[in-house]
C-alpha cells in the first residue's frame, strides 16, 4: 500500500544536500552571468563554492577565516554592480550580525548571504558549528529576504529568482541530503513566487485536520510524521514552508480560518523566532483561532550522528507525530 510519503516524495531522484544544489547551480550560472562573484571564508569545500572557484577563479575571493571582512567586502562588490554570493556556515555568517545589519541590510546591498550547515542535522561536529538562530536573526532585519529550500528544485529555483531580485538575501542550506519533493503541474507552471509556499497535497488543503508547515531538513521527518498521522485517520496537509520572509501570510490566514484543528511548524532551528515564531506573529495579528505547535530545537546541540541527533532532538516521523497527537488530545 502506498503511503502519503510515497505520494509526496519522488524516490526516483537521488537525494541531494541543498549546499550541493547551491554549489552546482551557482557554478552553472557563472557562465551566463558575468556579474556573479563568490566569496568564501575558507570553507569552500564544505559550502560547495569550490566548483565556482575552479571555473571562475577571477570572480572568486577566498577571504580567509574572516567573515566580518567577507560580508562587508561583499557589500562593496554589490555597490559596484556585481551580485555577490558570500558563503560560510550559517552559524559563522549570521554570527557577524552587525556587518549584516549595517553593510548589507541597512545599505540595501544586493548581497546573497549563504549559510550552510544549518541545524542539529549536521551531526558530529557538534554545537559550535550548528546554525540554530540564523533565521531569527536574519528575519528581523528590514530589506532582508530569507529562504530555506526544501530540496534541490527549490534551491535552484530560488537562486534563479534571486538573479532578478535587487536586495539583500539570506539562504539557509543543509549539510545533509534532502529528498526530492513532488510538485503539482500547476505549481511548476507558476514557478517559484515570493511568499508563496508549496502545498504538497493541495487537494487536502480544505479538508485536513492538521497542517504541517515544514522547512529545510525538517521536511523529510515531517512528511514521515504526516504519513503516520494519515495511517491513524488524521488527515494532514503538508506544506513546504520555504519562504521565511516574506512568509506565506495568505496561506497561514487561510489555515487559521479553515476547519483544521491544529497548525504545527517543524524546523531544525531554535523554536524561538524562526518559522514557528513568524507563523505565530501572523496568526496573532488577526486573532488566532487555531492552536500552534512549534516544533524546533530548544537547547544548544551536541555531537552525534545526524540520525542520532534527529532522534534525540525529536526530528523523526514518530516523535513529531507523537507531539502532534498529544497536542490534538
Amino acid at each position, binding site marked *: 500500500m502506498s503511503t502519503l510519503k510515497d505520494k509526496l516524495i519522488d524516490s526516483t531522484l537521488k537525494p541531494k544536500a541543498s549546499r550541493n544544489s547551491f554549489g552546482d547551480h551557482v557554478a552553472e550560472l557563472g557562465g551566463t552571468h*558575468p556579474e556573479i*562573484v563568490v566569496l568564501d571564508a575558507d570553507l569552500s569545500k564544505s559550502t560547495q563554492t569550490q566548483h565556482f572557484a575552479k571555473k571562475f577563479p*577571477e*570572480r572568486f*575571493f577566498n*577571504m*580567509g577565516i*574572516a567573515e*566580518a*571582512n567577507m*560580508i*562587508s*567586502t*561583499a*557589500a*562593496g*562588490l*554589490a*555597490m*559596484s*554592480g*556585481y551580485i*555577490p554570493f558570500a558563503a560560510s556556515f550559517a552559524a559563522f555568517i549570521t554570527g557577524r550580525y*552587525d*556587518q549584516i*545589519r*549595517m*553593510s548589507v541590510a*541597512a*545599505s*540595501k546591498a544586493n548581497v546573497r548571504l549563504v549559510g550552510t550547515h544549518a541545524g542539529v542535522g549536521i551531526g558530529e561536529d557538534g554545537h559550535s558549528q550548528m546554525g540554530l538562530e540564523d533565521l531569527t536573526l536574519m528575519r528581523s532585519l528590514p530589506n532582508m529576504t530569507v529562504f530555506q529550500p526544501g530540496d534541490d528544485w527549490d534551491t535552484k529555483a530560488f537562486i534563479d529568482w534571486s538573479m532578478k531580485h535587487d536586495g539583500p538575501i539570506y539562504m539557509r542550506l543543509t549539510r545533509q541530503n534532502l529528498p526530492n519533493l513532488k510538485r503539482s503541474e500547476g505549481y511548476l507552471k507558476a514557478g517559484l513566487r515570493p511568499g508563496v509556499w508549496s502545498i504538497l497535497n493541495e487537494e487536502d488543503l480544505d479538508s485536513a485536520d492538521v497542517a504541517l508547515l515544514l522547512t529545510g531538513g525538517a521536511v523529510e521527518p515531517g512528511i514521515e510524521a504526516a504519513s503516520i498521522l494519515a495511517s491513524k485517520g488524521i488527515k494532514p496537509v503538508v506544506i513546504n514552508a520555504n519562504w521565511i520572509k516574506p512568509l506565506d501570510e495568505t496561506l497561514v490566514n487561510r489555515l487559521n480560518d479553515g476547519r483544521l484543528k491544529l497548525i504545527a511548524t517543524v524546523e531544525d532551528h531554535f523554536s524561538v523566532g524562526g518559522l514557528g515564531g513568524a507563523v505565530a506573529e501572523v496568526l496573532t495579528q488577526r486573532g488566532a483561532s487555531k492552536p500552534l505547535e512549534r516544533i524546533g530545537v530548544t537547547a544548544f546541540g551536541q555531537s552525534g550522528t545526524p540520525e542520532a541527533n534527529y532522534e534525540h532532538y525529536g526530528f523523526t516521523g514518530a516523535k513529531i507525530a507523537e507531539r502532534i497527537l498529544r497536542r490534538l488530545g
Partner: protein
Amino acid sequence: MSGFTWPKENISSEKSRKALRQAILEQICAAGSGHPGGSLSLVEILSSIFDGNFEHGLPKNFVPKTEGKSRINRADLSLDRDRIVLSKGHGVPALYSALSFLGYFPAAELAHLRQLGHFLQGHPDRNHYDLMEASTGSLGQGGSVALGIALGERLAFESKKISRLPRVYCLLGDGEMQEGQVWEMFMAAPKFQTGNLICVVDYNKGQIDGPVKEIMDLEPLADKLRAFRWNVHEVDGHDVNALKGALAKCRIEARGTPHAIIAHTLKGKGISFMEHPTQWHGAAPKREQLEDAIKELDGTNNSCGRILGALASKT
C-alpha cells in the same frame, strides 16, 4: 535664503578650508548635535583629495547647485568615477561641506543636518543620500566595503565594462583602528593586490573616552601597516602640500600594493578652544561658541556670510 557663498578658489586654499570649517560648525550648531572634533580634523585630508586627486565623473553640462533644493545624484555620475568611503562616519559634516563646496548641493541645505527625512543624515546613509558611497557609522566596516568596491571596480575595468580604473579612498578614524575587522581588511587587500585602494587614517589622537594612546594604543602604527604589506606614507594631516605629495605618490594600478596614508591631525583643528582630544568629540557648539569660532576663522572679515542667517543677526 542662504547668505552663504563658497569662496571662488580651489577647495584646498586657506580661505576655502576656513569656509569648510565654518560650514561644519554651522551645520552642527544648527542640528544641536554632531561631532565637530573629528570633522574639523578631516578638512585638509578631504580638500587635498578633492583638489586634483579625484575624478568626480560629473556630466559635461554640470552646473554647480547653489540655490534651491536641486542636487547631483548618483545616477548623474559616470560609472568610472572615483569613490570616497567615509568609514569614520561621524565625520560626515566635513564631507557634506566639501560636497556642497564642489557644487553637489546648495550650502543652505547644510542647515538641515540631522533633520527627520532630510538627505543629510547624522551618519552617511546611502539610501538617504546616494552620493554617500557606503552607509557607515558602525565603526570598522567601511574599510571592507571600500575593499569590495575596489575589487569590483577593478573587475569592471579588467572586463572592459569601464575604460578607466577608479580610485577608492577610504577615510578611517584612529579610534576605529581598534576594531578587529579593520585588520582583517588590512590583511586581505595586499593579497588581492588592490592597487586602486587608498586608506587615509585621520590620526587625530582622540576618542570619546580619552586619548587614543591611553584607551588602546595603536603604535607602532606605520610599522604595523608595513608589516601588513601596505605602501605607507606618514604626513602632517593639516599640511595640504604634504598631503598632496603623499597622494601623488600613491601610484594607482589594477594589480599592485594598496596605499595607506597616516595623516597626523589634531581633533578640533582650526578653532583654538576646540583643539582637544576629547572635549569636542560629540558636543555641538552653542550659538555664542559658534560666533567665537567664526570670528577666529575669519578675523573681522566675514567674507562667506552665514548659512544660519537668523542666528547671525541674533548676535
